[in-house]
């Protein structure tokens, strides 16, 4: 009689990597919906095209590495990378821009390092930064939101913009973050009154997109896909930095905490990007430090840097620091005094 010999535990929880990734995809829907409402179908086309390229790149890499395709494609991690990059890129970006970004993310940032689980940097952010440095013009052309333009592009326009970039005249407008950075001498209230981009708390469209990503993120927290530590530390440190340099809304002000929380990629970053477990710190305390570091970096780059947004660079720098943070934040094991570290 043949009985199975396996190591304990014999029972397993219902969780799976595929399920985790699918829930992340699901949780992004409100944010994508709001972006589509305010900026048209550009983001959706970005995401879909990025997904096609990502699956192709992933398959190519797996084939070259002689790995079973179905098993590895099934983890949906390539789709998450495509989703994040698709959201982060400006809507109505040309197809080749997206393709280069996705290929850099999947082939370079992920598979060159050994595939899922081995990448020290967030693949989507590597793709984004490669594009930002190589094609600054295309990467800084954001469409105006509904309310500031008469004709928000429909699906056909969006497809044309992507695949026949020569035949589409994109209208672009500075984002609220750009307006704030280029502010010279206006008090916050005057700037708010003067520039049409500002809405109730932050930029028109942007504030709602951020709130939608916040909602999706809270749902993921509720589903225990990740812990609160990194997002909360990030948002808290960003708000704290903004409060420190708010300067009472003077002409030298860096913008209010609320403005920073609801601008750019803040909420997308907080719940969908810095929570990428592979490239972040591992322990609870480590994730607090990791999140706080990103918050500080985001503010520094937004206030004194030269880029449209700061999340990508901040995340990559924090990724670099993650092993170092891990080294100093090892939790106290049961029955031990706080860990005595011999410096390695």
């Amino acid at each position, binding site marked *: *009689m043949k*009985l*199975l*010999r*396996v*190591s*304990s*535990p*014999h*029972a*397993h*929880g219902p*969780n*799976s*990597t595929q*399920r*985790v990734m699918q829930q992340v995809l699901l949780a992004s829907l409100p944010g994508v919906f709001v972006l589509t409402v305010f900026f048209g179908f550009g983001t959706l086309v970005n995401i879909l095209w990025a997904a096609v390229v990502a699956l192709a790149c992933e398959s190519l890499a797996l084939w070259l590495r002689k790995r079973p395709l179905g*098993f590895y494609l099934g*983890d949906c*991690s390539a789709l998450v990378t495509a989703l994040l990059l698709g959201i982060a890129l400006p809507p109505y970006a040309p197809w080749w821009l997206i393709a280069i970004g996705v290929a850099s993310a999947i082939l370079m940032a992920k598979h060159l390092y050994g*595939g*899922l*689980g*081995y990448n020290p940097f967030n693949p989507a952010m590597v793709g984004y930064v490669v594009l930002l440095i190589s094609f600054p013009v295309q990467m800084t052309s954001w469409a105006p939101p509904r309310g500031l333009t008469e004709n928000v592009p429909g699906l056909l326009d969006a497809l044309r913009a992507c695949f026949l970039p020569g035949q589409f005249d994109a209208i672009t407008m500075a984002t609220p973050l750009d307006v704030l950075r280029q502010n010279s001498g206006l008090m916050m209230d005057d700037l708010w009154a003067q520039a049409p981009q500002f809405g109730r708390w932050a930029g028109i469209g942007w504030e709602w997109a951020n709130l939608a990503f916040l909602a999706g993120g809270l749902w993921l927290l509720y589903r*225990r896909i*990740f*812990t609160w530590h990194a997002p909360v530390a990030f948002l808290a440190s960003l708000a704290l930095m903004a409060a420190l340099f708010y300067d009472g809304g003077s002409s030298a002000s860096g913008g209010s905490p609320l403005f920073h929380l609801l601008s750019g990629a803040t909420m997308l970053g907080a719940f969908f990007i810095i929570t990428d*477990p*592979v490239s*972040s710190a*591992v*322990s*609870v305390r480590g*994730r607090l430090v990791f999140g706080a570091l990103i918050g500080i970096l985001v503010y520094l780059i937004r206030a004194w840097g030269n880029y449209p947004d700061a999340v990508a660079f901040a995340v990559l720098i924090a990724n670099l620091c993650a092993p170092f943070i*891990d080294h100093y934040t*090892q*939790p*106290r*094991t*049961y*029955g*031990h005094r706080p*860990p005595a*570290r*011999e410096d*390695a």
Partner: protein
Amino acid sequence: MRKLFDFHGGIHPPENKHQSLSEPIRPAGIPRELVLPLSQHTGAAAAPVVRPGEQVLKGQLLAAASSLVSAPVHAPTSGTVSAIEERPVPHPSGLSAPCIVLECDGEDRWVELPAPPADYRELEIPALLERIRDAGIAGMGGAGFPTAVKLTSGTHHHIDTLIINGPECEPYITADDSLMRERAADILEGVAVLRHILRPREVLIGLEDNKPEAIEALRHAIGDQPVEVVVFPTKYPSGGEKQLIEILTGRQVPSGGLPADIGIVCQNVGTAVAVRDAVVHGRPLISRITTVTGEAVARPGNFEVLLGTPMHYLLEQAGWDPTRSGRLVMGGPMMGFTVPHPEAPVIKTSNCLLVPTEKELPSPPPAQACIRCGLCAEACPASLLPQQLFWFARGKESEKLEQHNLFDCIECGACAWVCPSHIPLVQYYRAAKADIIQQRRDHEKAEHSRLRFEARQARLEREEAEREAKRAARKQAAEKRAQAAAAEGGEDPIQAAIARAQAKKAAQQQAPEASPEEKAAAARQAAQAKLAKMQKRLADARAAGEEDKIVTALEASVKKLEEKLASLEEPTA
């Protein structure tokens, strides 16, 4: 209300306990044959005191404890010892080990037991401990540490709290639960003995809140005794000794230490009953309560099983369908191990036999990459970082593993249970621990060899130096003598000695060669002398009652010498 504490992490797997709780404890009966491993506990194997063919009675000693950390084995029923041989035993290795095989006669006749004391409270503590040791009791919760050893170490410390372990947090297992429901009074009697031995300030029986019947039964049995039932929320692994201690006292057992170091002794409810049987009734440990469950048995439940009962016999009592079960697990689904041979016996630590169908507990799917999601670190009751340990285990980085406290892992399996990538984490940790222990052993051995080599080197140098010093001293003395002789005008003694030696050598060379006959005679003489010497040694050894081995060896040498002598005599005869 007592203040309860929480331990870090933990999980809530489906309990699956109701299946085996529908019926009261059933006797499993007497099988045709019992197989009793000499090692059913942590520590040294017991040494058999019976021989094959011997008739034994129920409760008779079969094998005695062979060292301090060991436990004796008794006959669970009457019958004949048919063999002492290697048989498959329930052990994670799946290997065989020496067992006493008992052919049961079905009469179940008791041996005459030593009369139990009228009141055990009048016995000295060492005598009580002796009784517990002689009864062969080993921790019945699963680890099987000899109970007397644990209690003895407890009497060396000031024991503040005695904790009776009753959470039974593993899914499926209900052996302790049914024991508490049906034999609460026996448990309390055992607890009273333990209290008497350890004299703790307080006694706590810890239970998860999913056992209302057991809680009720215990509270009823306690009456006005100074024992408290403490109920806490269900969470795996609350029944781990370290976790239970933290829940009840908020204190942590120091890494590498014992609960006694912080004034705590923990005993399982089943062990308490065994202690009561041993001390109050003088009965050794010969049976236990075992849960038989899983979808491959028709009537799951709890059985009172004679130790040594083959597992397939017990499974059949519960209506086992071997075609439906893919694996046989001893213990629960979280920490139990698979037993490849269903003829392996039930032993002192067998709290559960689980025969799940493939649908019930599917085979593990292929592992995916670790995405360092950290769910394992959230679940770890020891506050380890399982994802980091996994990383280091794959890279065989022993130093990092130890720095991340690999050896504080209790192998509860919570990390692997929550892992979304289905990585068999515990297996990696077990292998890594075994590797490191092997490395330590090798290192110790190498260190030992190095010390020995260095000592030898030092000794040789020292001897050389001493010889050198002696030579120098002799040379000096000789020079002095020569000077003295020269001064007296006499002959130099050294020159004279050299001349004598040369003369002797020359004389030898001139002497004729010995004839072959003379040579043979000399050889015979030498052989005869040798033989006589060896015969004397043999006679001495016999007289001194030396071991058989030595006597046989000497006999062999004598014979060899006789043969040699004979061969030497032949050609001349």
